[in-house]
């Protein structure tokens, strides 16, 4: 190992939204020089059974940016330790380790984007494409007193889905939430979007 003369990266933290996990840290600055960073991880298995073992991150060993998309490295719903070090030529910093291990079940789930449209008398929706981990629960109803709420599970985002063959002139409202199998959690519902057959979509 090179002699540790560079200051170690500080302020490691993970921002995770919709199962995209970004590790960030404060940059190490040496005027006029480009610093490389190496990111490594270990899951609960490694820390329990072989704590000396760390695995290089898929995308950031090395990287020049003070951040790393660790989404592809976090592939189980267990605690992960993460560490970063800086290098400049043969100079190497000490490792900085994330203070609190990260578990993907802490990710922030946002209500999905939702487009409601009409195709003749068909009510069609298109949900935000959030990746293969996401399923969607869609609730829709006719906008009239006492209307019954219907539920539909949608496996994939990003593709139009026929929701209902509607009656002419009827107004329908739709809202959706995401569900992530890998962590057994769902998001809040999106705002309801309403559309009137032969009319324009109305936002509540």
């Amino acid at each position, binding site marked *: 190992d090179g002699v540790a003369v560079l200051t170690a990266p500080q302020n490691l933290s993970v921002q995770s939204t919709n199962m995209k996990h970004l590790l960030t840290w404060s940059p190490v600055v040496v005027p006029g020089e480009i610093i490389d960073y190496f990111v490594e991880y*270990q*899951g*609960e*298995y*490694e820390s*329990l*059974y*072989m704590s000396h*073992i760390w*695995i290089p991150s*898929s995308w950031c060993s090395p990287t020049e940016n003070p951040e790393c998309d660790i989404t592809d*490295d976090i*592939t*189980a*719903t*267990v605690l992960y330790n993460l560490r970063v070090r800086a290098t400049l030529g043969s100079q190497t910093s000490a490792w900085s380790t994330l203070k609190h291990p990260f578990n993907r*079940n802490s990710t922030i789930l946002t209500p999905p984007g939702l487009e409601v449209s009409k195709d003749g008398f068909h009510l069609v929706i298109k949900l935000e494409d959030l990746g293969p*981990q996401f*399923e969607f629960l869609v609730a829709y109803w006719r906008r009239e007193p006492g209307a019954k709420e219907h539920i539909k599970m949608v496996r994939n985002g990003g593709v139009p889905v026929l929701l209902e063959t509607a009656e002419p002139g009827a107004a329908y409202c739709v809202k959706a939430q995401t*569900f*992530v*199998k*890998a*962590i*057994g959690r769902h998001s809040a519902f999106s705002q309801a979007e309403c559309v009137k057959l032969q009319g324009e979509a109305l936002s509540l």
Partner: protein
Amino acid sequence: GQEFQFGSCRVEGVVLQELWAAFRAVKDVVQAQDNITGVRLLRKEVLQNVSDAESCYLIQALLKFYLDTVFKNYHGKAAEFRILKSFSTLANNFIAITSRLRPSQENEMFSISESARRRFLLFQREFKQLDVEAALTKAFGEVDILLTWMEKFYQ
């Protein structure tokens, strides 16, 4: 959403497709190292006709063995073959499953847990009859047999 239901043991937060993807990425490399083709550790007698009630005991014993023995001692090979990422995915998902399994400890379940234990001992005995390295290679190569059996309980 889908989850594992091994009898009364429910396990959420594990996506079987992630395990399959991890194993498929290394299957050829790992199984190519297995020269003892006439032997199968996870034989029919171990996994066939397992009742729901038995399944929680059996999966716990098998996964614990994989974590404590197979993965622990195969890790060097995994590093050598540069398959640590997939290896880590499998091991950490096995940790996720075992940490959520709660097999019943009630007395009336004793005969069922004993039956599961006999199945596991069949597997373990077969494992111990092989040279250690060969046994580790074969056991890791048989993860697809294990995942196929586990799939029956993924609903």
